[in-house]
């Protein structure tokens, strides 16, 4: 059982990051609270991955400070596109990678096997431990990597575009599973390109384009003004079943629509 840490778990104060002379993040102030669920949205190259890596501690800011709660454990789920699906490894072997430090231990102990089986069972893939990772569906594959992160008993789960490249049904499956884990007290930060499918469902959103353009609930942050500042393109915000829906501004597509109607 994860011990509770004092909140905030992580605090970024005035953080800037540069690759060479180019600024990737500028003057970022950001907090990750215990039990929080934050989505980071922004265009490609806006610094989402760098922000995640700064939270993980693999990128050192050029300026500013990062404060972590003592004893903070972070689980990381990479993008599925970066996974080598042809690697000769089973589901259970992937999950066990969360315990990399034990020397002279090529094989899992009885206790480790039980822990892996338990976590796979909790995520609904208990029967798949011996399967090769390539033989799973998209949602199952995502669960394997979440299981690996959870085996480290983290206080915070950081995910890089967890629904990138998956179909609608898989996206639903993943977001419901994450919501379930969050209600059990696990704090989460994820990056996503999917404004309507993911971001509008989250309790907290950060709009990022090197700087934080807005932070708060979807209703407060997903406005035409903030979205245009973030993406550099005009967008309209509609409402459907009490939730914001983001669409491209129709006037911006007039020339394309004209092409279609003339054809």
């Amino acid at each position, binding site marked *: 059982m994860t011990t509770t840490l004092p909140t905030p778990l992580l605090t970024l104060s005035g953080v800037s990051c540069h690759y060479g002379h180019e600024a990737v993040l500028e003057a970022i102030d950001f907090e990750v609270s215990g039990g929080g669920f934050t989505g980071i949205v922004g265009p*490609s*190259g806006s610094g989402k991955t760098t922000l995640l890596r700064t939270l*993980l*501690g*693999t990128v050192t800011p050029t300026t500013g400070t990062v404060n972590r709660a003592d004893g903070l454990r*972070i689980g*990381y789920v*990479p*993008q*599925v*596109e*970066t*996974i*080598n*699906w*042809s*690697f*000769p*490894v*089973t589901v259970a*072997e*992937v999950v*066990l*990678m*969360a*315990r*990399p*430090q*034990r*020397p*002279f*231990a*090529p*094989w899992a102990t009885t206790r480790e096997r039980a822990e892996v089986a338990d976590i796979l069972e909790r995520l609904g893939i208990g029967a798949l431990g011996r399967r*090769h*990772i*390539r*033989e*799973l*569906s*998209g*949602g*199952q*594959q995502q669960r394997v990597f979440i299981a690996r992160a959870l085996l*480290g008993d983290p206080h915070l789960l950081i995910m890089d*575009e967890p629904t*990138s*490249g*998956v*179909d609608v*049904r*898989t996206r639903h*499956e993943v977001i419901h599973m994450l919501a379930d884990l969050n209600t059990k007290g696990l704090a989460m930060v994820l990056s996503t390109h999917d404004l309507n499918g993911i971001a509008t469902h989250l309790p907290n959103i950060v709009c990022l384009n090197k700087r934080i353009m807005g932070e708060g609930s979807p209703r407060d942050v997903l406005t035409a003004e903030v979205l245009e500042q973030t993406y550099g393109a005009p967008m309209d915000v509609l409402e459907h079943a009490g939730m914001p829906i983001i669409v491209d501004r129709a006037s911006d597509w007039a020339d394309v629509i004209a092409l279609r109607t003339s054809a």
Partner: protein
Amino acid sequence: MITAGVIGSSGVVDVLIDPLRYEFVRHALVVCAFAGGLCGLLGVFVTLKGMSYIGHGLSHAIFGGAAICAAIGLNFFVGAGIWGMATGLGVSRVTRRKLIAADAAIGVITTASFAFGIALLGLYSRVKQSIEATVFGSVLGVSTTDVLVIIGVTIATVVVVVAYYRPLLFTTFDSDVAEVSGVRTERIDALLMLLLCGAILTSMKVLGVTLIAAALVVPPVIARMLTNSFSRMLWLSSAIGAGSGLVGMYLSYHLDISSGATIVLVNFVIFAGVFAVTGPRALRRTAMAANAANAAAVGTGPAAPAAPAGAELSLEPRIGRV
């Protein structure tokens, strides 16, 4: 080369026993078996990291170091080892920065070292004789010391692989996440390079600079065609490598062909046999593993997309991130 005229009456026993009358053949059999097994073991990491070219590159780089050692009278293992290690770390560093793909980094760094060795050959004619044996491989000069060195290096390598099995597996599978999870991946990569240099240095005498790459690549490829498990792939590849070394050495003796060539040919025959049985599908997954590792190494593209087998959900075609 060895004359095969000593083979007496027919029979498998004679074929196996007769060569053992000679001490240098006994030495060579041990060295070839250990060299094959050692290369097979480390080749698993090399091929899965998409660095199949590293064996070829490092052996050529070590050739440069060997030339310098011969020219200045330095011990071969010390001088060439340091040279090879420096080259390996250079390749590793360039690759980790993801500026260029691993194969390009290996091509640039190791060919420069090889060219340096060739240049030394031209300047110091007395170097030439000892270097030729290094290029093509020879069992004639295998000494008791060589036997002890390769046994020692193999035992040390197995101990290190067992001790660091988990970080080695994690780093080979996903270096970025391994680092986030607390694995010191740069050290693990350096350790792998150190082991690889040791394997190449001790195997080069019998396999030769030009053929050692095959001993590092072919056994893991065969093993990958036979299994989906990493641990099984490790011992299968080692066993195939050791078996090829032993059989190849016997063939070398009886057919009067260089040991490096016969070992590689035995590897190829096994590959062809496994391919005939398992079909191109098994071979495809080894190619995809290497391609995916290469793509991940330079951060350019997606890994091979998942192919759900009888699953209820499927992934749409994946698009590389900008």
